[in-house]
């Protein structure tokens, strides 16, 4: 009759148990068990204690911002209400593929807007193929040279009522897609700079087009860029900190729609 397992543990812990001792002398099984338990106890005593470390200053604020705010550290996997999140799209075409990040921190998301169905009946110029067709025209009219024809345009909604109106347009020139951004007045960069991005529909991926430093500016789009995938124009205010990720501080945003001619 072997020793009870709990009693073996107590022996390993140093309890005196003369009856068990007799048994152990002739039972390899129970002796082995006591040895294992003793080794465990040794490891527990040696490596188990952990010195608590004081938590660093300012860490709670970061935790609260992330847990209770809306700035996920990385592209979040979609929750139950997901309709489209295709994480690979952002990485394939993003100019800086290590930093795809949800910039929807301070911004009014455009997701609430009803998605327009892409009309197969309208002939779209190749450059803007895949963009939803705009039914009404845009309100903001960009200056335009006569030879350029817009294939897509967008009103850029100011996310801050103090900002002037802005608009964007895609033209085709010399076989290239060109994005023109125009505002009545350039917003203050607050010691940083303004940056122009193209976002995908559910704001989980983004492509940077570069800094905006005049009230009207053109950006030649990368040839591989599919505007159908990245139809949303976003202009943000960025700090001069060398961090290429979107600051979350968007000033204007609007969705490009193919124009009907």
């Amino acid at each position, binding site marked *: 009759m072997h020793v009870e397992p709990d009693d073996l543990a107590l022996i390993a812990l140093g*309890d005196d148990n003369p009856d068990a001792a007799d048994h152990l002398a002739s039972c390899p099984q129970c002796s082995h068990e006591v040895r294992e338990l003793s080794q465990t106890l040794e490891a527990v005593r040696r*490596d188990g204690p952990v010195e608590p470390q004081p938590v660093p200053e300012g860490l709670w604020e970061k935790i609260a911002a992330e847990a209770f705010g809306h700035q996920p550290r990385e592209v979040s996997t979609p929750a139950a209400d997901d309709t489209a999140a295709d994480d690979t799209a952002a990485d394939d075409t993003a100019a800086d593929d290590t930093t795809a990040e949800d910039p929807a921190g301070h911004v009014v998301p455009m997701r609430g807007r009803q998605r327009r169905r892409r009309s197969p009946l309208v002939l779209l110029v190749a450059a803007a193929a895949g963009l939803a067709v705009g039914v009404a025209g845009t309100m903001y009219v960009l200056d335009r040279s006569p030879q350029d024809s817009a294939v897509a345009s967008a009103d850029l909604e100011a996310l801050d009522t103090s900002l002037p109106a802005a608009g964007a347009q895609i033209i085709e020139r010399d076989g290239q897609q060109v994005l023109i951004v125009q505002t009545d007045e350039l917003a203050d960069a607050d010691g940083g700079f303004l940056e122009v991005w193209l976002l995908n529909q559910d704001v989980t991926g983004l492509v940077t087009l570069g800094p905006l430093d005049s009230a009207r500016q053109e950006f030649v789009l990368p040839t591989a860029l599919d505007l159908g995938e990245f139809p949303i124009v976003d202009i943000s205010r960025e700090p001069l900190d060398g961090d290429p990720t979107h600051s979350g501080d968007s000033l204007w945003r609007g969705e490009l729609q193919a124009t009907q001619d």
Partner: protein
Amino acid sequence: MPAGDYPSSVSDADITRSFSDGDPDSLRQMYQRWGPLVSGLAHRAVGSSDAEDIVQQVFVAAWRSRETYHPDRGALGGWLTGITRNTIANHLRRRERTPEVITDPTDLPSHGASGVVTGWTDALTTALTVQEELERVGEPQQTILRLAYFHQLTHQDIADRLELPVGTVKSHVSRTLRRLREQMGRAGELDARRA
């Protein structure tokens, strides 16, 4: 008061209740209560520069997955320590996947000069397993176990100090040692297979 030294089990119950209710204040209370323990484990595992990141990930993950916490499966501190273990494991795994250029293939992760673990080791497994079990059992068991394992008081001394029957003390101490032996034994097998 350092985390783990005779903690107040009444306030742990309050924190647990408000956490289960989804009260954001509870996260701050959890941070104050267990932050130093999580930070200590993170330091043991990854050193001081990455430790802060680990701590942040743990508490954010705890908040986001609060609906997966079930009080009947163990105390909140134990659940949180389990999250810490997983966060550390993921971090170390990610670090392994993007290793620095190793010119000597026999140069494996090992203890740094300061004794800080720079890879997954038995010592780290022990620390995480033990702390998780200590937290999981709640009070007064945790205090009994610490006095027995770390302070090496006799069972009678513990019983006297905590005004508990010596049989209760012995039963907790022996059962937990057996459970730890199971968990650490399993972990060791996993490590051996992974190596």
